[in-house]
């Protein structure tokens, strides 16, 4: 029998969960509500995370554009996604919600801009 320890993050209580796995059957202990059980099972079978980072942008007021995955992606895809996003360069103008990478790593999830960046206007001296 395998035993795993987790902290539930569904609400601020932060229950310390113990999960036992026997013949691929999971039992969750220490949870004060049913959401804790669902969280633990998801964490141990198919954990997902939102990824937020920045990419290069040209011709805007700033050099970095903040982006995010439209939905959570499998946890193990986070670093592979980062290596793709490190190479992506976009050009202003970009609007909040614009897709900057479609279906990243075949996850079915798009990478979208999280802010608007207009074309840089050089200040007249």
């Amino acid at each position: 029998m395998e035993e795993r320890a987790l902290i539930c993050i569904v609400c601020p209580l932060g229950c310390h969960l113990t999960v036992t796995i026997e013949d691929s059957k999971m039992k969750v202990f220490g949870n004060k509500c049913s959401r804790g059980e669902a969280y633990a099972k998801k964490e141990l079978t198919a954990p997902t995370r939102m990824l937020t980072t920045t990419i290069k942008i040209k011709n805007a007021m700033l050099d970095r554009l903040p982006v995010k995955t439209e939905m959570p992606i499998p946890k193990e895809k986070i670093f592979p996604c980062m290596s793709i996003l490190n190479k992506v360069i976009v050009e202003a103008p970009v609007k909040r919600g614009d897709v900057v990478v479609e279906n990243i790593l075949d996850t079915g999830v798009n990478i979208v801009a999280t802010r608007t960046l207009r074309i840089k206007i050089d200040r007249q001296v």
Partner: protein
Amino acid sequence: MNYDIVIIGGGPAGLASAIEAHKKGVENILIIERDRELGGILQQCIHNGFGLHIFREELTGPEYAERFIEVVETTGIEYKLNTMVLEIDTDKRIKAMNETDGFMIIHAKAIILAMGCRERTRGALAIPGTRPAGIFSAGTAQRYLNIEGYMVGKRVVILGSGDIGLIMARRLTLEGAQVLAVAEVMPYSGGLTRNIVQCLNDFDIPLLLSHTVTAIKGRDRVSSVVISKVDAHMKPVVGTEVEYSCDALLLSVGLIPENELSRQARIEIDPRTRGPIVNDAMETTIQGIFACGNVVHVHDLVDFVTAESIRAGTSAAKCVIESHKNISATHEKVIESHKKKMNSIHICSKAGIAYVVPQSICHENLEDQFSLFLRVKAVYHNAQIVVKADGVTIKAFKKNHLTPGEMENLILEKSLLNETIKSLTVEVIQAEV
């Protein structure tokens, strides 16, 4: 220059209060922002988790800010960027300057203080050692990385487990740095549990509770830091020193409301919150000057900043509209009525409570429901927060879990109070185990 309402600071507090004041019928509004764009600290908080209370969805910082900025743009609320306020006075005159307008004196009927807070620095901690490059407050590192696009180091140690420190531990790891440890002097973390799980545990970054940095080494650049265990009195324990070779040290050791302008205007400051004393209308001890957001007390959720700022915006609008209606009201009368509002019912923090905001409420001003924001002094399990009016319990809130890192929001009904009450007290009562 004359405005009905001038708002100092264009972050989440300033934006929400401006929009609300405009909604309530005031059109002549100016926001003064010292940065090059609106949005405040949200623009560098590119992670998600904002807006669950206000928008019922999880947004990133820039997304949350942009929703408000868009409204400001469409309402015609004026704003000045790259503009520094130098002084405000009790007559609500604002001295400010920028490159295009030069020096300005702006007259306002009401002012809303929304200057936010600043990070505590290395100087405030007195860590022994050399003074090399490579020591950053966590928020500064966040701005370098997320907005300017610079890495602050390759091997990083973080002191303090506040949320910004935790968020930066993940952010630096994603960008290829190695975060060696997060040291926290307290026996518990000051950050949200979900940040400990998703920013540290996900990447196997050790959280060293009851530990602190006891030496910084390096000549031009940080070369290493020494971390020691601390005892129950937070004194370093000799013999527990571990040296971490690193090229950057981030400090996430607390935030301080930025109140130089408030002090100059002789607004009374609460030593516990380090922010202005306010009533339920978010009005300060000076009539017509309101305050909201992190300048009043440091929040951990921007949603609560927005809620508080909506109240400040509403009150400032009411103040302006009333002054338009009663032009005949003498200055003395206005001041007297304000004094009454500030001294109506005092709210006192008793056992286990670090502070309560607002510090006073006025019975006749209250809506049917009103909220009290507070922080506790220590970690409690199975406790109750009890509110008493002149010594008599009027409401008790059962709390399974209380920690100083998480602000509590108590909702109370006006009907619980009668008009003769002089004081409310708030305390934590630990249930017997």
